[in-house]
């Protein structure tokens, strides 16, 4: 029985035996992948859901201290790109490299190690609604580190302060008791609590009012400035992108039809880019 990573119920640590054997085989045959300065890199990635060819050869890369904004209309496959980077999906062809490692070659046992290098902020924040703010933010630490209660409490305070929330106010609140902007901040705190070098954001400002949008954008900038993370931000908000991006990629019909700095994008003569920007 082979496990499909495209299955929502897939288990990161399952099939231990089978997979360990596979890992051993891999180790024996492994060649060191060519080094690239990019922390996240996609090479000619293709992916279809049945007849729906979502990605038709995507190539892009982001390095440390960079923020790549992936722009595009809804349904073009922006979230799918993030799911590929997280290895929640595998590409039909092409390579997805995270810190130089091809995710298709990562076994189900090692995937945890891969995912610990990343933090993801989901579109709807995806906070666990049965857990309060503390338990949400502390969740990755309790699951995968041997940290003691006190160290965890300290770290949770630290990240909540970083995202401009007062720990004493919010620690025991449930997600349902938070505003959309606060939920997003908690989600960011949860994503950075284990200090990953790579951060992924899926439409971090969708559904937020302009003022909150601006503060979330500020927060993403602060992450780059102070922690020098590598960020991939999916958005359809051009103004947000203009504020936070060091690189932009515009997605249409499964392809990147524009890739460059925000300045280059805004001065582009391409007719679709112009339509998208207007």
């Amino acid at each position, binding site marked *: *029985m082979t496990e499909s990573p495209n299955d*929502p*119920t897939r288990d*990161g640590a*399952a099939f231990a035996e089978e997979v360990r054997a596979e890992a051993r085989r891999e180790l024996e045959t492994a060649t060191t992948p060519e080094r690239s300065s990019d922390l996240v890199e996609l090479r000619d990635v293709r992916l279809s859901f049945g007849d729906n060819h979502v990605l038709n050869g995507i190539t892009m890369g982001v390095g440390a201290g960079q923020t790549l904004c992936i722009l595009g209309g809804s349904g073009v496959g922006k979230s799918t790109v993030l799911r590929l980077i997280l290895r929640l999906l595998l590409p039909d062809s092409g390579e997805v490299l995270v810190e130089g490692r091809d995710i298709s070659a990562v076994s189900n046992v090692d*995937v945890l190690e891969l995912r610990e290098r990343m933090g993801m902020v989901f579109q709807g924040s995806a906070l*666990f*609604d049965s857990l309060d703010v503390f338990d949400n933010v502390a969740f990755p630490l309790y699951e995968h580190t041997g940290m003691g209660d006190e160290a965890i409490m300290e770290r949770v305070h630290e990240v909540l302060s970083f995202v401009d929330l007062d720990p004493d106010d919010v620690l025991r609140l449930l997600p349902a008791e938070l505003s959309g902007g606060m939920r997003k901040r908690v989600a960011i705190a949860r994503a950075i609590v284990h200090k990953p070098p790579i951060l992924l954001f899926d439409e971090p400002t969708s559904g937020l009012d302009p003022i909150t949008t601006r503060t979330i954008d500020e927060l993403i900038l602060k992450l780059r400035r102070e922690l020098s993370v590598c960020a991939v931000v999916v958005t359809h908000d051009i103004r947000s992108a203009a504020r936070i991006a060091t690189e932009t990629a515009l997605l249409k019909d499964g392809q990147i039809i524009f890739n460059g700095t925000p300045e280059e994008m805004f001065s582009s003569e391409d007719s679709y880019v112009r339509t998208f920007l207007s």
Partner: protein
Amino acid sequence: MFGIAVSVHEYFTLLARLLRSCVTRPFYRRDVVQQMDTIGVASLFIVVLTGLFTGMVLALQSAVEMERFGATIYIGRLVGASTVRELGPVLTALMVTGRAGAGMAAAIGAMRVTEQVDALRTMGVDPIRKLVAPRFLAALIMLPLLTIVADLVAILGGLLIAVVKLDLTAELYMRSVYETLAQTGFVLRYIPIDLIQGLVKPLAFGGIMAVTSCFYGLRTTGGTEGVGRATTQAVVTTSILVLAVDYFLTQILIVLFVG
């Protein structure tokens, strides 16, 4: 047809992974206790009501028939046998499915469409281990317990009717209940075989309910509407499976214990 085959395959894949995660680390013990609490609290009251009225109506119905033969003293037998062997397990399973099974499908479905299930996975936590296994184990424990409650209340409901409406003495009724339970014999001297049969069933039904509900919950798509759909599918499919499996289990148990 092909779709159904794929679903059946996925169902058993889920079951296999679930069983594996029940015997390998890490375990989420606290989640098991919490789910037991959820199932118990959600279902206890309706199970009591179900048992009460079932026992009462059984006594009433059989009285009509038995009065004709002057055999009302056997009412206890009828209530006891049909409750412990059949109605207790099945009705409890159906009621708990409507309540707790629906709740499982809805909760996991909501987590699925709000990407909480994906969030678990990105944090290196297996959703089957964290969400499905605790519900499965809790259902395995709680359904037999709730069934015992339903059986007891049903027998008491029958007693109520026997005493109030049919002028039987409580002692006569209870002895008749005991006789029917004793008639198939005992295990370890004190545990009636009938009761064993009556507890194997809820164990199976509890497992079916949890796996089916979580199965539909995990494959929820299409936002809030999808959650509603998943919940309905979970309840309908579980109910049918419970009734079908009940037939075959009864057949097997009869061969094992009676035949």
